């Protein structure tokens, strides 16, 4: 994870296109300016960044599902629950499943676990739109970097 750059997903462990499910991993860095404020002397990954991590795993799932024909943008976070604390150095297991493939939108359910323990979960909704100019190539590059494209038998 590079928290300051909003690169939350390190690698895709498994993508099951037929089932509409993705499993990904992320390692919380040992140090980050984020921890200086959240909280001083008691570093915890902010819930908003855990939400972003679930959104990015979901986003990659939607990208793969749509074969990169459209870009998903987060538009709603429902039923978000943060069940435990997590700090520097933690290995996160992220899962997301496609709940509904709508016309112009998609809905996922995502969760993060740490050492087998439920950390957080939420229902996320995305607006799917044509790629804004110039975004397609960098998204494909990031997807390649985390193993999404390699793992999808393109």
């Amino acid at each position, binding site marked *: 994870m590079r928290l300051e750059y909003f690169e939350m997903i390190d690698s895709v462990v498994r993508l099951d296109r037929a089932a509409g499910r993705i499993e990904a991993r992320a390692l919380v860095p040992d140090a980050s300016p984020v921890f200086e404020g959240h909280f001083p002397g008691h570093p915890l990954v902010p819930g908003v960044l855990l939400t972003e991590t679930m959104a990015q795993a979901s986003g990659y799932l939607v990208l793969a599902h749509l074969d990169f024909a459209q870009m998903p943008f987060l*538009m*709603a976070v429902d039923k978000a629950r943060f069940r435990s604390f997590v700090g520097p150095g933690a290995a996160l297991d992220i899962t997301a499943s496609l709940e*509904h*493939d*709508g*016309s*112009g*939108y998609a*809905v996922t359910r995502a969760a993060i676990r740490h050492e087998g323990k439920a950390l957080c979960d939420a229902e996320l*909704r995305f*607006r799917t739109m044509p790629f804004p100019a110039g975004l397609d190539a960098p998204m494909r590059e990031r997807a390649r970097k985390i193993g999404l494209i390699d793992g999808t038998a393109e």
Partner: protein
Amino acid sequence: MSNETATFDRVADIIAETADIPRDKITPESHAIDDLGIDSLAFLDIAFAVDKAFGIKLPLERWTQEVNEGKVPAEEYFVLKNLCARIDGLVAEKAAKA
């Protein structure tokens, strides 16, 4: 209760709950945008609830394109009685395929 009325009641309940609009303000003649003030984000919330409730997929992208290109007036999709007729059509189409 006719199919039409039943569909309208379900859709009106969904709109009331999803967009926080008083149920008695919602009539078959209501225009979702002009009369009820539903924005595009709220309309997608409603579409998701409708898709789930009726087991269909409202073709929002096609509808939007048709309206933007001037092929179909927005009322055809956004006035609730028309929206409900299209929902009934999609449900019937799905049943015919099953």
